[in-house]
């Protein structure tokens, strides 16, 4: 069997991944109402919509970067404040673009991977008389085709829009950067995915192991750090870059030149404007050439290795029984809403795609808290930054909140056979979103306590926003819950349900953001009143009716 057969074979598992991503029959879900013959086509359409949405976001970011390159070239006053030479500025923007490309593709990969593994699409092929090479190729093709639209957008849009902004030669020079970004993102998704199968999903229970599991999951936050770190620490990066590029710190610049993705971002920058204003020593030039070749070679190696290894990712390691007498385990049942929350936390601690949602707002708070502690010029500025961190935590918790419901795809059908009310499920999940917000607030306060001039104002702000975050969580989950029950399908993940998650997040974001905007315009009292008012409306709306 050749490549053509592998391509042909890949269609079936790929369709199965789409199908399971939407309907989760393998997790026990039941057919939704409506003609059964339309299900497969609907699944393919929904997955295509989700891919298109992710591709659209990536395209939008690329266009944004191109606009920034254009504005920077034209010489904006704000950008001029960084005192960056044109080549360094272009390289800085492209570094941001490539970092975000890698991070978003990686993050999407983490979400897809859960679907890919739980679909069981590949093991079905294993039992058929297909040779090893074809199986390996088929697995690789299935994996690559799951990313087809987003990767195509990065590979096409990056040279195209950078070419429009900086000229055709610069556009062409982005190809190595775009190719390596895609390859590294897919390889990182795969490596972390395999790690997930071996060390996290297969982790035993127990208190100590739970701590280790969450620690392992910090690995999955690297993509988040890449996106948020660049947004939060962008100004710091440009300041450092400005100093390094002007020749005041050649060692820093040489270190930057060797660091991915700055290395490959330098190529289009140099192609566009030449080394104008950048102090490029012969050492730095040699370093640039060597590092560029090195990263391209690493990408080639990574793609070959990944392609040949995808098949192994869907296999769980065999476990041997523990020696000695079995320990005496105890059951500590909690009230239903709390039981739902504990179950979700346990599931999320073994599912990086979900753990990410909890850890992201918390890590963002840590990042902004540290920046506040280190960089804020005065106590008032520190207070503003700390408040901004809480705002970010509130918005992130409500933006990613709908994904907490998508965990219900796991054993969705069995869960519905239990005497568990809608109210308990929604309360359990809303509590988790609110805890994430509060934890983020506590972290910011803990880190910035010495710099914040009026901690009680900060605490009041956190407390006043609390009802709004709870209201937003209840509203989002209430809409999702009724939507999924009405359609008879579980809410799925980013691979299949990105559109739904986004649409539901909008009213939640509005509810969470309204008191924050009111604070800026009308002050604290109006903020608190609005926040409480929103909860008074949303809570009965969502929890008012007890259902099965």
């Amino acid at each position, binding site marked *: 069997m050749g490549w053509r057969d592998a391509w042909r074979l890949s269609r079936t598992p790929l369709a199965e991944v789409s199908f399971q991503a939407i309907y989760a029959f393998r*997790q026990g879900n039941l057919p939704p109402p409506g003609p059964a013959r339309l299900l497969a086509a609907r699944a393919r359409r929904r997955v295509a919509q989700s891919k298109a949405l992710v591709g659209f976001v990536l395209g939008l970011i690329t266009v944004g970067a191109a606009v920034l390159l254009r504005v920077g070239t034209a010489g904006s006053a704000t950008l001029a404040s960084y005192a960056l030479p044109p080549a360094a500025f272009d390289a800085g923007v492209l570094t941001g673009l490539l970092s975000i490309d890698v991070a978003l593709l990686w993050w999407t990969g983490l979400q897809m991977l859960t679907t890919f593994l739980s679909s069981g699409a590949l093991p079905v092929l294993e039992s058929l008389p297909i040779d090893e090479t074809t199986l390996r190729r088929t697995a690789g093709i299935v994996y690559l085709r799951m990313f087809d639209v987003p990767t195509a957008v990065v590979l096409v849009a990056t040279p195209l829009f950078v070419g429009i902004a900086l000229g055709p030669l610069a556009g062409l020079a982005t190809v190595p950067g775009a190719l390596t970004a895609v390859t590294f993102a897919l390889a990182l998704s795969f490596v972390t995915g395999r790690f997930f199968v071996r060390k996290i999903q297969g982790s035993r229970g127990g208190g100590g192991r739970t701590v280790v599991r969450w620690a392992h999951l910090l690995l999955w936050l690297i993509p988040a750090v890449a996106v948020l770190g660049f947004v939060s620490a962008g100004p710091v990066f440009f300041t450092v870059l400005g100093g390094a590029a002007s020749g005041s710190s050649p060692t820093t610049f040489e270190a930057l030149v060797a660091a991915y993705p700055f290395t490959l971002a330098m190529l289009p920058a140099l192609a566009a404007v030449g080394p104008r204003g950048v102090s490029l020593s012969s050492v730095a030039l040699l370093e640039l050439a060597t590092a560029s070749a090195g990263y391209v070679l690493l990408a080639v190696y990574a793609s070959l290795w990944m392609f040949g290894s995808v098949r192994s990712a869907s296999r769980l390691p065999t476990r041997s029984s523990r020696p000695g007498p079995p320990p005496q385990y105890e059951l500590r*049942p*909690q009230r239903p809403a709390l039981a739902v929350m*504990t179950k979700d936390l346990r599931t999320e601690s073994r599912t990086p795609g979900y753990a990410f949602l909890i850890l992201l707002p918390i890590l963002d708070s840590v990042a902004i808290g540290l920046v506040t502690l280190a960089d804020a010029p005065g106590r008032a500025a520190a207070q503003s930054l700390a408040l901004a961190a809480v705002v970010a935590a509130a918005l992130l918790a409500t933006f990613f909140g709908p994904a907490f419901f998508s965990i219900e795809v796991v054993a969705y059908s069995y869960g519905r056979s239990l005497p*568990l009310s809608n109210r308990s499920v929604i309360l359990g999940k809303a509590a988790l979103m609110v805890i994430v917000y509060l934890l983020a607030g506590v972290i910011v306060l803990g880190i910035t306590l010495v710099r914040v001039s009026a901690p009680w104002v900060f605490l009041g702000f956190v407390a006043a926003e609390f009802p709004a975050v709870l209201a937003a969580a209840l509203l989002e989950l209430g809409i999702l819950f009724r939507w999924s029950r009405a359609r008879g399908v579980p809410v799925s993940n980013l691979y299949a349900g990105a559109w739904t998650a986004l649409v539901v997040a909008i009213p939640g974001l509005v509810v969470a953001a309204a008191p924050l905007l009111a604070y800026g315009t009308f002050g604290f009292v109006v903020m608190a009143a609005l926040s409480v008012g929103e909860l008074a409306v949303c809570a009965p709306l969502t929890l008012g009716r007890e259902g099965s």
Partner: protein
Amino acid sequence: MSVESAADESVPLSIEGLTIDYGERRAVDSLSLALRPGEIYGLLGSNGAGKSSTIKSIVGLVRPRSGRVRVFGRDVTVDGLSAKAKIGYVPETSLLYESLTPREFLEFIAGVRRLDPAAATERMRAYAIAFRLESELEEPIASLSSGTRQKVLIIAAFLHTPRLLVLDEPMNALDPRSVRIVKDLVVRYAGAEGRAVLFSTHTMEVAEELCHRVGILDRGVLLAEGTLNELRGRVAHGDASLEEVFLRLTQEDEGLPAAIALLEG
């Protein structure tokens, strides 16, 4: 409380005119049956006969097109939570939260069912010892064999001492020792006052051994119902096995020798 509803509350399960559609396909058509207290009722049928759909409507997973399902007088559609609280359910496939361990899963079930911690722990330990599951209580369910997952589901179904057991192919993937235990459990369980068991199976020997009455479903319709002797009477064959009765009633025996001969050829 009306006289009718008071009478209903002593009936473990009553199904009246149940019709279930999946899109254009009718899975169950105007099904009516009732379980008596202390009874083990077997639901038999070929593949696609409507057994699992019927069971899923009892546990509230499928909303019927029409008809009514009551568990100890509680309408599953109207008062689902009360009905589900009385049921212990083993699904036909191992539908578990795979990322949890069996202990974590059972703890979740105990929480949802508001069980006393000490009693729940004691029951979990007893069942774990019986099913030789103790060393696997802290392993992720995803890494367990299908038979072990089935044992976890059986423990979850029994954990709260339900009044009605609904078992959909409960012996799937179980080893002979566990099959023996489950059979014994079902018989002892139904013997307790006021309880009842409904289970579906393809294994006629198991149904013959355990069930007080059986109902035979064919393409969504209840073809026949009764004790084995009553069904033998229906096919006018005094010492027929349940398998022979089933094949005769469902007319699945027609063309059977020819089909076997075709495969041999």
